[in-house]
């Protein structure tokens, strides 16, 4: 979310901006190749430089990895970064690049192993701790190492919004809502105001934590901020706003829930869950036929069997209430056939 894979056209200025360090003199020829987009020759030059002085400069490994990635050699890029890390285990800049590269090249289980090995060589690396903690959180949140890794990363990098978010997320997953809300608030404080995707995600989780803490007003405010971010996204992801809809329904604010749901349908017209929710609003208002039409859209856009199942289940009830028993039986048949 915060750190994307850097597959970029080369320029020294960009590298400096991305990694925060300037090029050394020995890389000047490679730099010239990279500036021209001639990554093949850049690789040759960088390889030569490494053969000559493997312990000279971590930047060489980074440039090599970037060049290889631009040549679509992901495995080579990963290998270059790993060679760099083994030479310069304390280089947080190399580590940062490495942890963004690993998940793009190997599967999550292998990524976890590789980052774990890197961390074993550099046990103090906050970047690696965050990365391993993130991988564990995604794959096996119950792993006893996760809390320590994420707590340590969040403490060591108090201005790293993602580290704070991940620790907050771990806390929420373990019913530690107060800690969760506190870490997420810190994360929000250092999240750039134009990082709308992050604002949606963090505010959404913060809302859940506040709701669990019994502070419905704070939850409402956090959800509202999330929706505000959602409305600014070029590629809007509707999950958090949809959670807001459910939250509002549970609060009894059906009017506002409908407004938010309709906004979701405008921005994500293929989002099945919002169509089903809309159908439920209509059904609750006794507009059975309209509810059925709306839920047919939900069925059309259902992404998987679970989503489709929820719609079929609803349609059994809706058709039944509308007095259309034979149609209800069709959907009942689907549910029966898909237990």
């Amino acid at each position, binding site marked *: 979310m915060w750190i994307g894979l850097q597959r970029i056209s080369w320029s020294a200025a960009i590298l400096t901006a991305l990694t925060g360090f300037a090029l050394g003199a020995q890389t000047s020829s490679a730099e010239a190749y990279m500036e021209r987009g001639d990554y093949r020759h850049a690789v040759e030059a960088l390889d030569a430089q490494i053969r000559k002085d493997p312990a000279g400069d971590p930047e060489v490994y980074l440039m090599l990895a970037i060049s290889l990635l631009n040549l679509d050699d992901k495995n080579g890029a990963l290998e270059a970064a790993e060679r760099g890390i083994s030479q310069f285990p304390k280089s947080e800049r190399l580590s940062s690049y490495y942890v963004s590269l690993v998940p793009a090249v190997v599967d999550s289980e292998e990524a976890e192993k590789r980052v774990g090995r890197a961390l074993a060589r550099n046990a103090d690396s906050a970047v690696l701790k965050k990365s391993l903690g993130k991988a564990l959180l995604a794959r096996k949140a119950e792993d006893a190492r996760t809390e320590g890794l994420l707590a340590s990363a969040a403490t060591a990098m108090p201005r790293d919004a993602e580290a704070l978010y991940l620790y907050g997320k771990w806390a929420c997953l373990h019913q530690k809502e107060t800690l969760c809300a506190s870490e997420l608030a810190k994360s929000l404080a250092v999240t750039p105001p134009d990082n709308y995707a992050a604002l949606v995600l963090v505010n959404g989780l913060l809302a859940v934590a506040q709701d*669990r803490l019994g502070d419905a007003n704070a939850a409402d405010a956090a959800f509202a901020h999330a929706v505000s971010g959602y409305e600014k996204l070029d590629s809007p992801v509707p999950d958090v706003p949809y959670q807001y809809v*459910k939250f509002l329904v*549970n*609060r*009894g604010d059906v009017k506002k829930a409908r407004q938010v749901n309709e906004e979701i349908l405008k921005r994500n017209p293929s989002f099945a869950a919002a169509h089903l929710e809309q159908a439920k609003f209509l059904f609750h208002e006794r507009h059975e036929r309209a509810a059925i039409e709306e839920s047919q859209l939900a069925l059309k856009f259902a992404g998987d069997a*679970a989503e489709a199942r*929820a719609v079929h*289940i609803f349609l*059994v009830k809706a058709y039944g209430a509308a007095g259309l028993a034979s149609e209800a039986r069709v959907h009942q048949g689907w549910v029966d056939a898909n237990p």
Partner: protein
Amino acid sequence: MTPAAVTILALMAAGYLYWQSAVPVKSGEITFRDVAPRSGFEYRSKNGYTGRKYFPQPMCGGVALLDFDGDGKIDMFLTNGAKFPENRKTDASYDNRLLRNRGDGTFEDVTEKAGLSGRELGFSFGAAAADYDNDGYPDLFIANLGRNALYHNNGNGTFTDVTAGSGLNTKAADVISIGGAWLDFDNDGLLDLVVSDYVHWTPGIDRECMLKGVSGYCSPTMYEGSVARLYRNLGHGSFEDVTEKAGFGKHPAKGMGIGIADVNDDGLMDVFIANDTMRNLLFINRGDGTFTEAALAWGAAFNEDGVSVSGMGCDVKDFDNDGRPDIVYNDLMTQLFGLLRNSGRGYFESASGPMGVDRLSRNLSGWSMGFIDYDNDGWKDIYSSNGDIDYEGANSKQHDTMWRNAGGRKFEDVTAGLGESFSHMGYQRGAAFGDLDNNGAMDIVVTSLNEKPRFLMNSGNGNHWLLLELRGVRSNRDAIGAKVTVTLPSGRRLFNHVTASTGFLSSSDKRVHFGLEAEGMVKFVDIRWPSGTVQRLANVKADSIVKVTEPAK
């Protein structure tokens, strides 16, 4: 003749009389106090765990509340487990127990005299009390692994096992029966029985499952499910298994709690069964001896997301005072309990979110449960006995919860204020409601795995109340299925019906309870008896236990 005397005579002529005018309960905040330690009984629920985890062990400790000796005081029957792999009650520590209410806050163990130890049975689960032969004494059905049991109450403090020849023993020997519920589905005046059967299991096919690296109890998904069974009472102690004929047999089940109510107001009792890891079942009574399973069409089969949960206890009563019975069921942590509001249009609408049940139940694993107006304000609250399946981490031991119904708008958690006894941490299982001291405040009997049970006496809060003990004449004598509407002087109307089936493994006081809040008089009590007879009582005094006999036509 004085007006009061006229009234009394009129009331008696109408077929009811005040049985007891109890001492008003004290005013103030309600607490529940455990009085079980005052009584010298030996029972503690014992699931037979000795290091090897057998599948049924988490489900031990059923409760039935009944007045077995007809002295007007509610007694209790507690079921118990068995030793595995033998599936036998190998010594007295596994005995089921009958505890007689002495009326002074203590209970006397009369199991041996009553002949109810169940030593000949295997692991016992639920108990259901009712007068199936209309002789005036409540009998007992016990659901077991192995054969089920029907005990006839002889009316002299003893019971006789009459299972053999009763027709009730038609299930396969390897089926776990969880509980039973009495109802008169054909309104012929004889109580029929529905039994929730769970899975096919014997110690010989028990599987060992590892959870987080340690031995744990397997999920019911590992075992083949069964079906709910329906037995029609033919009279003279004889039952016919009508499971297939009635349409129950076509619907797979892993049945747990059973709720009995007339959900579509057609005068016929319907059956809701909460299933574990399978869709719930709602059998709508067609009135011709058959039922239509319609949980899906009624919106009661799955949760709001279309997913099956580990349904445990359930209750079907009217929580929002609109005259229509609603459904509540509980399940395991993170699944969220279900509260379904009866729309009156042939389906239920999920009320779990709007009523706060989602949020309140998130971290609970519930077992027995039900609607109970614990504070006599006329709104039925929700009680749940909680505790995880086994020790699986920090939140495994849990306490009971009481969610107060705030005027039908929201449920709010009032557990913390109900006292230390109520908040006991453990693995709570069976629980039943009843007025053990006849003071109009509903008490709760709860079992906890491998612990002594708690008899939680409700202190009351000074609100008015009414308890109705109905006696059927044309209808079944227990009047199970009778619908009662109470109209208060303010015009407020309250609804309930006669059923003992609540929660999980358990059977409650069958008397119909109403909290009246500040109103000290009931303008009308309207009773629709299962026979179809309609009866109205006028100007009924509050704070009374009133016996009402069905008018003979």
